[in-house]
């Protein structure tokens, strides 16, 4: 599991990669903690590189969303691989997150 961060204007884009599972979710949480802690208000998580995500990974993303909202920020997700998207659909999370097909549209819609 890896997190690559870049800043585009006032938007922080994090590209997630690899497996997000029970073992790696705590590491993802710590990485995203750091980014939220830097007062980023507009955050995009690009999930294109995610090869697997389990319910601990989904729960971690939900918790991140909650915290960003509490801090007055906004979270967008983009480029969900098909398997990840079907998990989001099964767990009804497509209604909870703002999801975009491309990074550009995710950034343009803040």
């Amino acid at each position, binding site marked *: 599991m890896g997190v690559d961060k870049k800043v585009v204007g006032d938007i922080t884009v994090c590209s997630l990669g690899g497996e997000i599972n*029970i073992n790696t979710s705590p590491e993802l*949480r710590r990485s995203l903690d750091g980014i939220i802690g830097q007062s980023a208000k507009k955050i995009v998580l690009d999930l294109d590189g995610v090869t697997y995500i*389990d*319910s601990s990974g989904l729960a971690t993303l939900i*918790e991140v969303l909650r915290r960003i909202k509490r801090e007055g920020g906004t979270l967008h997700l983009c480029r969900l691989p098909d398997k990840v998207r079907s998990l989001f659909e*099964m767990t*009804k999370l497509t209604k909870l997150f703002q999801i975009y097909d491309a990074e550009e549209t995710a950034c343009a819609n803040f």
Partner: protein
Amino acid sequence: MNAGEPIIVVKDLVKSFDGRRVLDGINLTAYKGETLVIMGGSGCGKSTLLRHMIGVHKPDSGSVTVKGKNISSLQEEELDEIKKSFGMLFQSAALLDYLTVEENITLPLAEHTDLDPDIIKIMVKMKLELVGLSGFQDLKPSQISGGMKKRVGLARAIAMDPEIIFYDEPTAGLDPIVAAVIDKLIVDLSKKLMITSVVVTHDMQSVFRIADRVAMLYKGKVVEHGTPPEIRSSDNPLVKQFIEGNPDGPVSFIQSGDDYLKDLMK
């Protein structure tokens, strides 16, 4: 692993208890993503076979390979690691009465992971939604019905996102409608989450609702296996008797009178 790959391979499995051979050369494979049903009457060895698959019993001879590892030869730590990829729904649901629904589902996550309690709380809510019990997290098992207990047991079985779920008589003691609900959940979870399911049951309605493949056990042997239509049209008299539920046939439930008379004279 890709769909269709063998995930559990039972080879020439033999097990005896007190000189009585309970499993007598079982060969059986469960493939990734499928629902394999092991059916048979009481005492045919199906629960013993299940206990070998989850590493509770060790074979006298033969082997059980799970995800490429012979589980009977593993050290305890390695076996524990493999067991993390298992979920298990027991006949009785096996919930702890003094804990709430949420606490029951939390148990495996708190015990086996380093996840933050806030994350676990969210996961439990997601699992309860998957089994159709959102909002029931604060109730105790004594406050819910038998069917709901089974669903909580199922939510706990999927708590760790297992690759394989073992079900021991999942519909036993349930009315037909609740049994159908449990069957539907088993099918939905298997297909949606690509979980391999191994189900031990003697509920024939359930067998034909959930199985991708069926193996019938009789006296510790696999006497027939195939898809549900193949099993339904089998000419094997053991299978036919079992499906039709006939008291008379090759499956004997009654000891002979001679044994009884001899026993009286001992």
